């Protein structure tokens, strides 16, 4: 059986159920790298120039882990999934860059996803990908339809049950749901929205268990995945007019939405040197300082980010919010 390696980084959080379903329908086995470790981060960073952004370094670390454990590595080049909205260069250059900096990697399965070139091209790209497993176009068609259904179910699951991508993936993979986090919802101290890309928010190694820290301090955490596509689009249009990059609604749309929907505070998480985020996070910050209603903090992550630094800033931010709430409660009395 052919083993396909999928690195647990970057677009994994967005598309893993689709990819898994597609390859399994075609009779391949899917191998996923484990959650990020320090070793992965160090080995990934050592291959590229220092300016490369943290998520890409982590991605390469995952690829290095998969070397020797699979027959192919799947790295798509996703150019656009919406008309006239393109993706960051790093996603486009990913297959070629991996090839260049990790020569020992197993053959890379890449495919171009560009909806601006028309459906025909997209179907051709899917068939070409399927050609590695079967010559039969009907089988590929069936697999891709099943995969698409898996994608829809995945997003439905996240927005209807307020789940984060790792939780939803666990449910889909049949791992019993961990302790429901509704237990501390009764005694919530504050509701904090965090905005950013899933590969930063849910990679517990690079963000130093940010979400669980917030939850342990009895805060309710909201993430961009808990919003519907319409809500994100509406807020994006309000803040920046048209979206310029594919995955920026997670930042600017979610930020814009939560700024006006009564959360106690918003934390933006971005990677150092991220091109799109450097603009979009700033747009959210500008909006926050215009509205002056919701506190906003942005954290920039890189491989030198220290746990203590994050904890200190988080504590200070939370203290400020608790104090604000206390004063408000007292003045209401």
């Amino acid at each position: 059986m052919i083993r396909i390696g999928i690195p647990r980084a970057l677009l994994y959080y967005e598309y893993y159920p689709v990819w898994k379903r597609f390859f399994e329908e075609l009779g391949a086995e899917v191998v996923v790298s484990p959650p990020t470790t320090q070793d992965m981060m160090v080995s990934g960073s050592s291959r590229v120039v220092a300016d490369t952004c943290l998520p890409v370094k982590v991605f390469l670390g995952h690829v290095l882990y998969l070397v020797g454990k699979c027959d192919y590595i799947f790295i798509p080049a996703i150019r656009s999934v919406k008309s006239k909205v393109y993706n960051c260069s790093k996603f486009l250059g990913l297959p070629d860059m991996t090839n260049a900096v990790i020569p020992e990697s197993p053959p890379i399965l890449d495919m171009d996803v560009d909806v601006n070139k028309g459906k025909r091209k997209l179907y051709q790209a899917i068939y070409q990908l399927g050609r590695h497993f079967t010559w039969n176009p009907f089988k590929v068609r069936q697999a891709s339809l099943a995969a698409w259904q898996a994608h829809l179910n995945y997003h439905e699951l996240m927005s209807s049950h307020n789940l984060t991508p790792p939780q939803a993936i666990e449910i889909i993979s049949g791992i019993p749901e961990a302790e429901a986090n509704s237990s501390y919802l009764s005694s919530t101290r504050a509701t904090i929205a965090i905005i950013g890309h899933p590969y930063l928010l849910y990679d517990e190694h690079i963000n130093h268990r940010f979400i669980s820290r917030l939850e342990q301090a009895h805060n309710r955490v909201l993430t961009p995945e808990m919003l519907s596509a319409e809500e994100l689009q509406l807020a994006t249009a309000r803040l920046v007019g048209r979206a310029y990059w594919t995955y920026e609604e997670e930042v600017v749309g979610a930020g814009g939405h939560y700024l006006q929907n009564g959360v106690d505070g918003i934390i933006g998480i971005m990677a150092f040197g991220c091109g799109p985020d450097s603009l979009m996070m700033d747009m959210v910050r500008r909006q926050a300082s215009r509205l002056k209603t919701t506190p906003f903090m942005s954290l920039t992550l890189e491989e030198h980010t220290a746990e203590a630094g994050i904890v200190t800033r988080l504590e200070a931010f939370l203290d400020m919010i608790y104090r604000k709430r206390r004063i408000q409660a007292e003045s209401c009395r």
Partner: protein
Amino acid sequence: MRVGIPHMGNLYIPLKALFDRLNVDCVIPPVNNQRTLSLGIKHSPEGLCIPFKLTLGNMIEAVELGADTLIMAGGTGICRLGYYAEIQEQILHDLGYNCEMVQLGVSEQKLFGLLKIIKRLSNYASWFKIISAFRFGLAKLSALDRIERVVQKVRPVERITGAANRLFTKAIKAIDKADDYATLKKVQIDYIDQLNQIDKDTQYKPLIVGITGEFYVLLEPFSNLDVESELGKLGVEVRRTTFISEWTKFSLFLNPLGVNEKARIHKAALPYLKRDIGGDGWESVGEKVLHAKEYDGLIHLAPFTCMPEIIAQNIMPSTKENIPVLTILCDEQVAKAGMLTRLEAFVDLLERKRRKGNNR
């Protein structure tokens, strides 16, 4: 209406000629200087690249001089630059400047779209007037670039250091002043003649270094600390394929007809980078592959945090065609001394390589 024009190299000269002929009042902010940079840095998000910061600085200075309409490149694409105009407009509004931003999306709107924008800016002048003014602007642009090509050849072999640069500065002024085709032609011939008559060291065979990378930092000497002149002083002939006149010629007139000057470069890059990654990343890789035999070395210029150029920089070392590459990241922290040291070391390395090659 007063139109403010941000700087990119000498692009302001043809634009000024164009607007002058259409009787549009235009404001040229001071050439990029420390104040421009400081203003830009102060009001920009920190993670943005130097083209954003410098053009924002230009815009603020233009508005201070009374501009109420600003022109800036724009459009959709992968590189952030297409989005800058919108962000800069927001920043200027937040600063309390009341001005309108006009986006020139050259690659999307093509020639006609561009002419329509000019028509609007010129308060609906006749098409005849617009086209003739546009032609004159293009003539100035190509005169500038013709002279610059000669300057690049003369710099490494001149006996009196800086002679070519001094003439170039004069030529720029003369071209700026010329207001008809005859004078322009005369200026062009005159200065190319003078440049050719500069006292030269004919024995010396200069090293040839290609220079590639991101469009803006290649063409704006302030942002790259005038790397071309510095290389010239070190006795290196600089070859650059990116010229504004070439670029406008192709993107306005020939690309819509299906002629693509970059097809050759893209084809060369294909084994290492299969697709366009936005900005000039594809071209950077392609130029290394294509010119590996002709050039002694390559200087790769990129703004700090430039997304496409980082990919290019990562891919470049793995190409089979092997020439030394020096990547210089340009941002507000780059210092002249640091860059000079790196250039000297790079040139020393190339010279040693050439000596070794000759001995064999």
